[in-house]
């Protein structure tokens, strides 16, 4: 573990050296991340100039859920940014190199694709939550920050588990499957209360690809929706289950891995 943390520092400094070579691009990348985060906020704000509530949910409640949604997503994309795993590691045979390294293979890959600039997403999300929270007059108990950290950590594990499982599909087939971008688009459903979707979709979002637990259910705790507390408490359980599943799939995949041949 100590070794991973030391490597983490090295990769971090390496990352900034590469990025700061092209400064204008580094800044426009930060701006474009921010634009992406504000895009959906604009959608919410514009819609609410026409309607008072969306099926009983008020403007600032929806904004709060969105703010929370940004935080675990930012943490996840900082550590699990290997969207191009198939191309980068399997097709180009880089996985062979990873397996000869002394560090845990998943940790090694995670470090190689680390994106610390995504931390800005955490800041944006927290600012949005505080803004919406103050409009809603939510009061904080002393233990709420601890619960927040626990929930965010659990939501990040859900993301990590799902995308690790998807990445490990590449160990069985080296052709592009296109599953990751589909799931990425489904996860955006988690930004809104699941009760606005039909039954099939809300079952999907609760139990199969549990993106209801990366935004809506954890936020319900802070919004004092007591009828949903059961789901909020389930968040850490879902996090552990899905992350464990992800790791199991991954390790199975690594065992099956036979190299791309060249």
């Amino acid at each position, binding site marked *: 573990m100590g070794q991973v943390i030391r490597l983490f520092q090295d990769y971090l400094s390496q990352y900034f050296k590469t990025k700061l070579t*092209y400064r204008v691009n580094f800044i*426009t990348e930060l701006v474009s991340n921010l*634009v992406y985060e504000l895009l959906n906020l604009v959608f919410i704000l514009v819609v609410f100039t*026409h309607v008072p509530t969306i099926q009983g949910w008020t403007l600032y409640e929806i904004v709060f859920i969105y703010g929370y949604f940004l935080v675990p997503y930012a943490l996840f994309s900082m550590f699990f940014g290997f969207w191009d795993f198939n191309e980068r590691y399997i097709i180009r045979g880089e996985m062979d190199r990873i397996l000869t390294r002394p560090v845990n293979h998943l940790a090694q890959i995670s470090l190689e694709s680390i994106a610390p600039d995504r931390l800005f997403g955490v800041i944006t999300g927290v600012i949005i939550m505080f803004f919406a929270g103050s409009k809603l007059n939510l009061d904080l108990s002393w233990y709420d920050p601890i619960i927040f950290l626990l929930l965010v950590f659990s939501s990040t594990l859900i993301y990590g588990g799902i995308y690790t499982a998807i990445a490990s599909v590449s160990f069985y087939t080296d052709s592009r499957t*296109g599953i990751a971008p*589909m799931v990425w*688009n489904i996860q955006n459903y988690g930004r809104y209360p699941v009760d*606005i979707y039909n039954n099939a979709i809300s079952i999907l979002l609760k139990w199969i690809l549990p993106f209801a637990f990366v935004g809506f259910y954890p936020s319900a705790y802070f919004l004092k929706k007591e009828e949903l507390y059961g789901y909020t408490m389930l968040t850490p359980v879902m996090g552990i289950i899905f992350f464990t599943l992800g790791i199991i799939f991954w390790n199975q995949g690594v065992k099956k891995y036979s190299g791309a041949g060249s």
Partner: protein
Amino acid sequence: MGKLYAELIRIRFLTLLAYRVNYYSGIIIYAINIGAYYFLWGAIYSGQGNLAGMSLSQMTSYVAISWMSRAFYFNNIDAEIGQEVREGKVAIEMIRPYNYLSVKTAQALGEGIFRLFFFAIPGLLLIRLFIPFQFPDTLEVWGWYGLSLVFAFIVNTQINLLTGLFTFFFLRNEGMMMAKRMIVDLLSGVIIPISFFPGWTASLLQVLPFQAINFTPSMIFSGALAGKAAFTAIGMQVMWVVILLVPIVLLWKLAKRNLIVQGG
């Protein structure tokens, strides 16, 4: 000269045809997005008759057609220009006896034709199975929509050329391209019809070129824009096609002077 560009269009079409399987997952992704907004708008409209002059059924058509229009006009020629500048390939392109930007436009058109037949049309028919929306009932509306979509494609390509040209100055430009893609989606009306924007933001969007990319054709298709108003809107699109030529020509002149060939 015309034959050369026709050939470029054909080659791009055939190249994409070889990789058409990659586009099947694209259709599903668009369906996922249309689904998300379909449910969201359903929830937003519950208990409301008309919002910003649009009924729920018009909104449903709007959501479906705006994404499927995007399936047609979307392309990555800005990223292609960026890559050719970064790898130094642009030097070879520039000594060839054709105009680099026209070549890129021709390739974009080849991609557009491919996307129309293998992405937008099958996507539209697939979506129709799940989401009940109305096709225009007269041939006239289809005609206006088609014409408007052609200009939408041109304006979008022009904006892509502009972003691509900035790579000549910054060498790496992925950030700006990403930001552009999202801004175009928001301000052209894919995410929300621009008639929904309140107060001064609406008047601002009226004088920007983005509405020509998606809002105009989608409003015509959904029947929210008809008759003389549709005609005026298409006139605006033509105006933008002409206006946008000016910065492209100027930036291209500057870019040629500024070019640094990398790699090799």
